[in-house]
């Protein structure tokens, strides 16, 4: 499956960026999803969604006071009004000429660069490269719901790897997380507990 364009860059930095897309794209991106920003010269930046926000405005606040909002008004607001859904993304690596790096990129993407949802193929390629170095970009952000992000991301990547005949990826990823968090017991327990919930959910 090819990557799907889901929106455009609103603002960015080396460690993360915020992408905007119409609210109608709501079914596409989800927490923990791997995104890519294709730039010139075969240069790609990768990021993982850690938050999704939908803003309101005066009209929305007025409309919600009504008992029944008709379907056409809902669609008009979601698809035609300039209220983008904002996705906050933590940068987790980059790629140049097909070589994936889990380091921070040398330069950030620019305003209005296209944001894509990675295909399973890209997801496998990125998560299989190196030795899970990209985990530390998420772990560094102590204010984020780390356990939830890992659970969502690992679940998505595990499914892609399973379909690709690599069920061992999940075990390796979990072991790496335990190693990285061995000195941070509370975070480790939170991550493992969330991963456990994911398992139960499946």
């Amino acid at each position, binding site marked *: 499956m090819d990557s799907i364009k889901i929106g455009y860059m609103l603002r960015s930095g080396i460690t993360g960026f915020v992408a905007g897309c119409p609210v109608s794209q709501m079914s596409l991106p989800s927490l923990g999803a791997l995104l890519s920003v294709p730039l010139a010269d075969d240069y790609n930046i990768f990021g993982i969604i850690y938050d999704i926000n939908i803003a309101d405005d005066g009209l929305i606040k007025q409309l919600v006071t*009504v008992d029944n909002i*008709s379907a*056409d*008004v809902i*669609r*008009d607001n979601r*698809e*035609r*009004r300039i209220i983008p859904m904002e996705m906050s993304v933590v940068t987790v690596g980059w790629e140049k000429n097909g070589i994936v790096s889990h380091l921070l990129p040398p330069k950030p993407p620019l305003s209005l660069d296209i944001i894509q949802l990675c295909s399973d193929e890209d997801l496998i390629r990125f998560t299989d490269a190196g030795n899970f170095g990209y985990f530390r970009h998420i772990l560094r952000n102590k204010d984020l719901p780390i356990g939830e992000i890992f659970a969502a991301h690992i679940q998505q990547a595990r499914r892609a790897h399973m379909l690709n005949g690599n069920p061992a990826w999940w075990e390796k990823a979990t072991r790496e997380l335990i190693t990285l968090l061995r000195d941070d017991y509370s975070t480790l327990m939170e991550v493992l507990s969330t991963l456990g919930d994911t398992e139960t959910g499946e």
Partner: protein
Amino acid sequence: MSVSFQQVLNKIQSITSTIKEDQEKLNLRRQFAVKLWKKHADECDFLIRKVEAAKENDPLLRCAIPTDEHLDHFNLLPPVIASCTLIAADGSQVNPDRHSAILYSLVNIGLIVMKPGTGETSKIYTFSDLKHGEELYADSSLISADLVSLQRDLAERHKLLEVSNEYQGTILALTDGPLEVWGLRQGFSESYRRALETHIKVLDEMFKKEMVLAGVVDKPGANLVVRLLEIAEAQEDDLKNIKSYSLLRRVDDRWLFRTLPPGARSAVFGLQSSASTYYKGTHALHFFYLNTSADDHPNIVRVEIPAWVASDKEKLNMLHASLIEQCRIMGIKPYPYILHRAHEVAVVTYEDKVYVEQLLSHELLNAQVELGEISSKKSAKDLPGRSRP
């Protein structure tokens, strides 16, 4: 602090000392207006004759003309309407500003099409018309803000017709404000006459398409029906001086029609105005008042319609029900949702204006055209104010 608050306060105190007396005077006039409304409710022929007589003494007379419905007639909200396509248009403009570095004008028209009840996504259209150089001159002088407004009003109606050609079935077309094109009223200028003629041609096409056309005036300040009541009471001598004859000063129609039940419309009236010679026959302007509120706090709007809508009860009911349905979407501040959305689409924000100016200056510089300078006056006004430490 540039306002002399002491002087303002003195004035406020003098206002409040007379406000009660003032209010009592107004209330007496309002009560009298209601009496006249009831007294003349079924005297349509008599009222039409009085308006004709008044017109002879004031060709610019602006008032209501009774139709076959009594003055105090009202229609409750009709039942749910058949499906139709709603199209709303609104416009905004940037007037040429001789104090700016670049002289240009911009008319931006926004349209939205909705098919209520179908769950279909609305469709949005925008049309932007930038004028520069020779285009900004009418005869020997720079076009005025009034003329740009007139161009905007005409463009709204043109685009409404143009977009309606893409849709089948019953089309209900709405604009914000009066149906009549306004502007340059003083002296009945050539530009205004041409604009009226163009508008009539657009109306011709809309009539052929049997479109349900309406202009919605929110919080109307006019006294068209009240003026009719004044004319009804005017004696022969008063009619000779009808321009200055004012029996019910400060009483407006909105107050008179506040008694309409929620969702109900008033009687339909004809509109007597200086433009009546242009808007005639099937295009003659009519209006009714509508209480768009869903509760006991009235919200009165005036809805202007052409004669071909006024004379067709089915169209009238469809318009009435659709407007109320649109207002209900907006909850406690009832205004047709689709008109608000057309405004959102049409509005040229300050950021849009700055961006247009950047694009224009960039292209002009590329073409090695010398840009003008911002006037010293504007420069001084644009200086940043003092900020708090």
